[in-house]
């Protein structure tokens, strides 16, 4: 318990932004992974003490065999990087091959497939953000494809989801966080900062901290939502798998597998959808539409009168 508290306090007290970000992500991750490994060892001790359970529970939560291979290189954090690099290399090779010989007439099947993905993403983004969304399709589409593939990677035996680790999801959420404020400042200038103060000027001392906390809660909730969903799904899969193995009932985890495919898609959708909602909240058109609408309403009233 004191371990967690001291970690969190340490990371909160770190001075520079970079180290705070890095330290916080690391501290949370370390507590989580230390918790998992400690818990596994504690569970195995319990099992050894009880000598009743059929399967050693530490297998379920124990670290991966690839992780144990690379234990000497980078410790157990390293396996996430490998899985992430697998996804990245796969995507890079796929899209390189698809866009190498682009044609208009005789389209290769691969190009057709990638165009289908792009058109689907384009429709999704434009449906959500309007025509402005075309500027963000690179960011949103990359998020969607990468998260979807990382979520699905955990369902392959022997591999692990990169998104089942708080480091990856925190990195993704930080990109979102900085993108929101970058686009807000770029499109609205210093007016963007004004909206933190709220509409009523004498409530500004109250509204500014509320808005700041709300802004800081966004990457937290984005990252923890994705991490918790994927990690919980993986743990549930593992538990069901070993339950089936213990009961001599193979493919006991198959329904959960289908559910996991579904939640992988849903979580990728949710992450990108929230990113789009946040970015379009930072863009100027929303509030201007509101104000313009009121102004038009007044004008119309004036005309009517």
């Amino acid at each position, binding site marked *: 318990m004191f371990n967690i508290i001291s970690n969190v306090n340490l990371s909160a007290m770190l001075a520079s932004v970079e180290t705070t970000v890095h330290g916080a992500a690391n501290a949370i991750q370390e507590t989580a992974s230390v918790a998992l490994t400690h*818990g596994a060892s504690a569970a195995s001790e319990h099992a050894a003490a009880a000598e009743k359970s059929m399967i050693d529970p530490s297998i379920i939560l124990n670290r991966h065999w690839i992780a144990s291979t690379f234990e000497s290189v980078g410790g157990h954090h390293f396996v996430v990087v490998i899985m992430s690099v697998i996804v990245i290399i796969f995507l890079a090779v796929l899209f390189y091959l698809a866009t190498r010989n682009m044609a208009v007439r005789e389209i290769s099947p691969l190009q057709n497939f990638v165009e289908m993905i792009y058109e689907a993403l384009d429709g999704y983004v434009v449906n*959500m953000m309007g025509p402005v969304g075309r500027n963000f399709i690179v960011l949103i589409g990359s998020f969607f494809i990468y998260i979807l593939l990382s979520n699905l990677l955990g369902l392959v035996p022997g591999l692990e989801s990169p998104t089942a680790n708080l480091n990856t999801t925190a990195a993704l959420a930080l990109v979102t966080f900085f993108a929101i404020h970058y686009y807000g400042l770029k499109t609205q200038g210093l007016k963007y900062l004004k909206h933190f103060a709220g509409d009523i000027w004498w409530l500004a001392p109250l509204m500014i901290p509320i808005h700041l906390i709300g802004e800081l809660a966004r990457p937290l909730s984005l990252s923890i939502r994705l991490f918790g969903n994927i990690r919980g799904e993986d743990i549930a899969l593992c538990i069901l798998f070993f339950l089936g193995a213990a009961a001599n009932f193979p493919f006991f985890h198959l329904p959960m597998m289908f559910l996991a495919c579904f939640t992988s898609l849903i979580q990728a959708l*949710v992450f990108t959808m929230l990113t789009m909602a946040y970015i379009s909240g930072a863009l100027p058109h929303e509030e201007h539409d509101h104000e313009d609408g009121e102004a038009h309403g007044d004008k119309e009233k004036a005309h009517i009168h």
Partner: protein
Amino acid sequence: MDLHVWSVIFSSLCIAIGAFGAALAQGRSIVAALEGIARQPQSAGEIRTTMIIGLALIESLAIYCLVISLILLFVRW
């Protein structure tokens, strides 16, 4: 009792209560969205996207409970 036993009991209580509240809230929001879609089928797309965002926000509370219960379970107290 042992602290480990307490942590197991309260981690299960944590996820149970959290899932209960989140399930109630999600059920209400889905009911409202379905009523809206049934009344105005042409605005089904907008309602669906807004509903999914809301469901994600509600679900994150249950996920926080899951994370806390995992911490309770797997930290060696």
